[in-house]
């Protein structure tokens, strides 16, 4: 061991430090303004989604044929669509579906992918089986699979979410497996074997925590891509029923009236873009912060 590389210095300094938190999630330096902006946008969207019933000025499903395709005015702030429904209310309600699908897909894929990945990384015999199944899943285009599932079973929130989640699982499994493969070579894992720890303890206590940081990053990307896929499915007419206000549905309906009233596409589109952009930016920030290669050894472990 040679000395006085910066990390060695950091390690030494940490000896004199008082007890610190284990994982420093809160930044030491102030994050860049883009990150702050992204966080604010995302928080606003989440708040809007939760408070939609109170924020929305009208019932998003209430049709009034007399007020079809109205321009923005005092009653209908963003105007109305082809059935006379309030566009603003529909866009606000649309955030609910998008976020549910996004967060739901990310959670489900982690819950299924994490144990599969750990098993594949730990047992050589299972590795071949699990990874070949995952290779197979990765070969299926996600939108096609979704369309197939939705057309076989009726479209509701759960089937759409399942259709979006299944192709994402292999990404999680691969990530977890690669982390576990390198972590199981660590001497502390061998020490645990020598201490007679059960396989479950080794996997859960010694291997799993290594995967958390990359998993957090990966799930933000999955969340963003799930929101996008849901919008695509709705737009293609393979998603939730057309009466449900989702951003994809609103855009699909607005497509017909694009020349007369482009705002029908513009507003849900801009919400979708901001939402995905913020999630991706936050994911990037999380990656920069949690990436083990950027972390100083011994410092902020």
């Amino acid at each position: 061991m040679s000395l006085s590389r910066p990390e060695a210095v950091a390690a030494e300094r940490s000896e004199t430090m008082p007890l610190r938190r284990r994982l420093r999630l809160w930044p030491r330096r102030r994050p860049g303004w883009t990150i702050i902006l992204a966080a604010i946008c995302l928080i606003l969207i989440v708040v809007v989604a939760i408070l939609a019933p109170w924020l929305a000025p009208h019932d998003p499903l209430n049709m009034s044929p007399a007020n079809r395709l109205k321009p923005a005015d005092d009653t209908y702030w963003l105007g109305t669509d082809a059935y006379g429904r309030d566009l603003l209310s529909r866009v606000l309600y649309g955030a609910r579906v998008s976020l549910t699908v996004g967060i739901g897909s990310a959670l489900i894929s982690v819950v299924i992918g994490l144990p599969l990945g750990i098993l594949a990384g730990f047992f050589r015999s299972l590795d071949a089986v699990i990874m070949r199944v995952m290779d197979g899943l990765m070969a299926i285009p996600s939108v096609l699979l979704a369309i197939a599932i939705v057309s076989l079973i009726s479209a509701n929130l759960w089937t759409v979410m399942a259709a979006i989640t299944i192709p994402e699982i292999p990404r999680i499994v691969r990530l977890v497996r690669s982390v576990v493969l390198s972590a199981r070579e660590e001497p502390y894992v061998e020490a645990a074997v020598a201490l007679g720890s059960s396989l479950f303890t080794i996997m859960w206590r010694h291997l799993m925590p290594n995967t958390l940081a990359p998993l957090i990053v990966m799930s933000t990307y999955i969340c963003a891509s799930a929101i996008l896929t849901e919008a695509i499915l709705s737009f293609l007419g393979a998603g939730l029923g057309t009466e449900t206000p989702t951003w994809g549905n609103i855009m699909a309906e607005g497509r017909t009236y694009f020349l007369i009233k482009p705002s029908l596409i513009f507003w849900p589109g801009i919400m979708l873009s901001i939402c995905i952009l913020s999630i991706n930016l936050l994911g990037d920030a999380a990656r920069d912060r949690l990436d083990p290669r950027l972390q100083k050894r011994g410092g902020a472990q």
Partner: protein
Amino acid sequence: MIHEAIHPARMPDPVLTIEGLRVAPQSTPTKPILKGIDFTIAAGETLCLVGESGSGKSVTSLAVMGLLPKGILKATGGHIDLEGDSLLEASRGRLRDLRASRMSMIFQEPMTALNPLMRVGEQIEEVLIMHQKGLSSKQRQDRVLEMLDQVQLPDIARVYASWPHQLSGGQRQRIMIAMALILEPKLLIADEPTTALDVTTQKQILKLINELQKRHGTSVLFITHDMGVVADIADRVCVMRDGEVVETQPIEDLLRWPKTEYTRQLLTAVPSLRPRTARAVTDREIVLEAIELEKRYGERSAWARWTGKTALQTPAASDINFALTRGRTLGIVGESGSGKSTVARCVMRMIEPTGGGVRVMGKDIASLGHAALKPHRKRIQMIFQDPFRSLNPRLTIATSLVEGPVNYGTPREEALARAAELLALVGLPEDALDRYPHQFSGGQRQRIAIARALAMEPDVLVADEAVSALDVSVQAQVLELLDELQRRLGIAVLFITHDLRVAAQICDEVMVMQKGIVVEYGPAERVLGSPEHAYTRSLMLAAPGRHWDFAGFRPLDRVFEDHPTSTATVYQ
């Protein structure tokens, strides 16, 4: 070499002068890493920079080369003067010109210092392309071949065209030296260039550096932590500690009459090569036994077995026999690739032996299944080389210490109370229980790892290079601790090491391995005192600083030299 080292009073102009060099982290300029370093190197002189981890040796060399990591470390004061060029004020372009042509550097890790995607000849040639624009490609190639010849590589035409991965560690370090010296720089900085190499290779490389230095009149700034190497090559020595120069003296004076207490400690901590006198055998009970133990890599596949084909297999260790009795220490020594770690891991059942038996307390565990093995795992515990990776960084010390006992049914409270006792036993405060590994130094972590192994109340402790990553003073403390624990608890230790000095100080019996076979096995006093096998002898001869008694501050009166009394050995 020491005798040549004593220079006459005539002092030529220094090649490198460092005055009051201060380096501090950019974020906290008030906590400097170097607190005013002064030293000079004369033409043709070898100055050794010695110190333990964190003393600032490497930072000094990086500051000279102008390679301090940008935005992290910054020189805040002082002077570095290389033959009239002030390096701290030099522009980036000027520094680039100076590097390689006037000063150059070789690094510790020859495995990663070469670009794996370029043939080595081209890599050396690159230096010429950058710095000597006038040469034709034929001239450049001739220059490179001549340099390869100078660093004594065999078959230079083939080496010129080979890729780094085709060369051994020693050969790569020779390439690095060729690259560093091709422009005949005035100053060569060698940052632990032999630490990653085996002793026999180390000896050759040190000899080579010395020869080239004489031929070209190069000054060498040699950074090392190994006092043995220092004793072999240095003209003068500069001892560093915590970013300050403790003392600078000619080598002979330093070894005989160290001025400061710190240097004295540093020298006393160097273990002696002379094996300690064997301890009396108190207990004849065999706790660990290996019988014709064998490990081959490249398993025959089920298909090959079924068709009866023989597949290519690499034996990592074969026909290993030893017996370890209670309270004794058996050392396995050998260079990298000798199979010593393979034996340790087979004994631990970290890897499956392909043949033979391992008996722990008389019970063969070599072929037991996972569940049947569990009660026997308790009997045999391991200490690992790297104290920074052998403790889970996310668990408190208490959690790490009680994990084993809890696995074997001890109630948690009881295990915690025992953990506190164990910490006291290895010399750590009780409040360490609630802390995390990163809050401890390397030596402290190794103590914790020992405590964790002891928590299982094992009969055998396997120590795989357990002190190799530690500084000498810390190393001495850990060895002392192991020795004391052994006396108090009667544990048998299987000690794997490449360091003959450590082996000589801790082992009762020594087993020397080479290329997977045991070449010599016997009491430490005999094997290391009067080795019979040629390989053991070559290891002893390659041990750096073997003519000096560091703790006694005088040369050894009886040095092991290579005039064998008999050429035939028992084990051949």
